[in-house]
């Protein structure tokens, strides 16, 4: 059996979303032995998340854009796993990577000390995707306030909604996609509240014209939303969520150019759920912990730096998709295909390279258009929890900065515990850095990429001695 931990692979791909799937099947096409390692139970990642078989969905494609791409990739995956050219490991959370002639990837597969797996491979490709960026506001910890991506994920996989009347808010293209799938699934969306004015896109006209498919995708969402009477409020933000035990409404205000709420513009909208997000943050800790080079994207996030062949700065380590800067499924697929060709030592088709370059340019334009303005901190009150896990309010963070002299997120963390809880700062990190006036975005340092039972850590320590 190829999936035995003792097997050594030519390539280990971490993440079975669009980028990882494309890379794995392309490398297997070229004759490489591939381990495809994923935390989820089914292939697809977050983008192609789909209902569990038990739900008997006859038309999962109705919740997706570009489902045929996924259908093709998953058919090829099945063929390769059937021929044992790909060892597909589901439910494997990779928590650290050890470089070497053969890389060793350590994964946890359950809570027990024995529930550990090691995968060895000559090359590693990270296609670990992204999670959502959040900017806190008063009331954002109320039940019923969920991330826009979370609403999408729960809908795609579980066929459930957090409520019937859902305000979609924040910034970025995910809002349009989330809102159109929510209304398709029967929710009422009284408003999409988008902080930017979209004028940022106009500055990149040639890039827009080079990506007609992305324009058509946006237009498709727009038409669906128009048909359902969804109102798009630009240059506005949810500045407060109301309710006691769950959300019952929001206050929306108009913003100035820097995202500062304008006095006298507040309006209340009744709702029983809020789906909110401010773009995505690449999930790259497996690589940054080893010292891989990073770059700051135009929206202030940190992504892995890769060359034209998707190579990171570490020998034998490659990356594709959102880990290299958030740009969508189509870009991820192109990057996965390119990386697989390079790892296999084969020239990549010119068309794929062109598509990658065009989509990457679009991604940079998109990131610049939705870069959060510094004035968003104007909607915080001293009591607003910024760190959800440790329940650290904005007032305490400001005290650490103004009175105790903290000038970066790490010092704020040591003084207040913001970012020290369960999620390890993934939810509050960008907000804390902003409040701390951190001058330079940098990669977070997390020795372990996900929670690991102590028994499994102990096993690693024993082996290393």
């Amino acid at each position, binding site marked *: 059996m190829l999936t035995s931990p003792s097997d050594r692979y030519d390539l280990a791909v971490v993440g079975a979303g669009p980028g990882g799937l494309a890379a794995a099947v392309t490398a297997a096409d070229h004759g490489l032995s591939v381990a495809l390692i994923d935390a989820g139970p089914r292939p697809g990642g977050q983008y192609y998340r789909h209902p569990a078989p038990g739900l*008997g969905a006859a038309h999962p494609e109705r919740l997706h854009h570009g489902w045929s791409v996924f259908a093709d990739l998953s058919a090829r995956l099945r063929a390769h796993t059937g021929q044992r050219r790909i060892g597909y490991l589901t439910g494997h959370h990779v928590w650290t990577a050890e470089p070497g002639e053969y890389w060793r990837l350590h994964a946890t597969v359950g809570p027990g000390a024995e529930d550990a797996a090691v995968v060895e491979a000559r090359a590693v490709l990270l296609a670990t995707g992204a999670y959502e960026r959040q900017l806190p506001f008063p009331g954002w910890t109320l039940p019923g306030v969920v*991330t826009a991506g979370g609403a999408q*994920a729960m809908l795609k996989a579980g066929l459930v909604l957090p409520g019937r009347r859902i305000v979609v808010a924040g910034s970025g293209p995910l809002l349009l996609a989330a809102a159109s799938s929510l209304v398709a699934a029967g929710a009422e969306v009284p408003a999409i509240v988008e902080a930017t004015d979209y004028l940022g896109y106009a500055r990149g006209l040639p890039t827009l014209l080079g990506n007609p498919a992305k324009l058509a995708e946006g237009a498709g969402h727009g038409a669906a939303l128009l048909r359902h009477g969804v109102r798009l409020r630009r240059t506005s933000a949810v500045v407060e969520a109301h309710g006691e035990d*769950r959300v019952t409404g929001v206050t929306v205000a108009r913003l100035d150019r820097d995202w500062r709420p304008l006095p006298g513009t507040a309006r209340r909208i009744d709702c029983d759920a809020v789906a909110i997000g401010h773009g995505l943050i690449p999930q790259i800790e497996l690589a940054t912990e080893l010292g891989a080079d990073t770059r700051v994207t135009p929206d202030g996030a940190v992504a892995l730096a890769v060359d034209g062949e998707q190579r990171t700065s570490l020998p034998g380590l490659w990356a594709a998709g959102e880990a290299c800067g958030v740009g969508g499924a189509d870009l991820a697929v192109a990057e996965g295909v390119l990386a697989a060709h390079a790892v296999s030592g084969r020239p990549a088709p010119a068309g794929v390279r062109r598509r990658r370059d065009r989509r990457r340019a679009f991604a940079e334009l998109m990131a610049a258009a939705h870069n959060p303005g510094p004035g968003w901190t104007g909607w915080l009150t001293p009591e607003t929890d910024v760190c959800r896990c440790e329940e650290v309010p904005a007032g305490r963070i400001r005290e650490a900065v103004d009175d105790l002299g903290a000038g970066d997120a790490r010092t704020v963390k040591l003084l207040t515990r913001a970012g020290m809880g*369960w*999620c390890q700062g993934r939810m509050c990190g960008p907000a804390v850095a902003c409040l701390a006036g951190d001058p330079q975005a940098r990669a977070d340092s997390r020795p372990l990429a996900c929670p690991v039972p102590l028994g499994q850590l102990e096993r690693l320590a024993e082996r290393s001695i």
Partner: protein
Amino acid sequence: MSIRRTPRTPVELVGAEPGPAHTIEFDGRPVPVLPGRTIAAALWADGVLAWRTTRVGGRPRGAFCGIGVCFDCLATVNGRPNQRTCLIPARPGDTVTTQEGHGRADLAV
């Protein structure tokens, strides 16, 4: 004015024909679950949005990120606290209880 030619529920949208529902117990009462749903999805489908109270303020919390990143959806499942309900498929007969604080009151720490 909204025109509703589309289905009214996610299940209708994808033409789902789920297997028969099973049951889990949430805080002592039965909750029906369509097969394949996670615990968090089962609770949402039953109109439950909160199944944890925070350690400091005792505030209610439920699923937030839906993908296993935020840890807001922790609950005690079959006696084991701090389980990410958005990742765990609900199995017939599972017992889910609202988790209070760190969920380790039994350790008296």
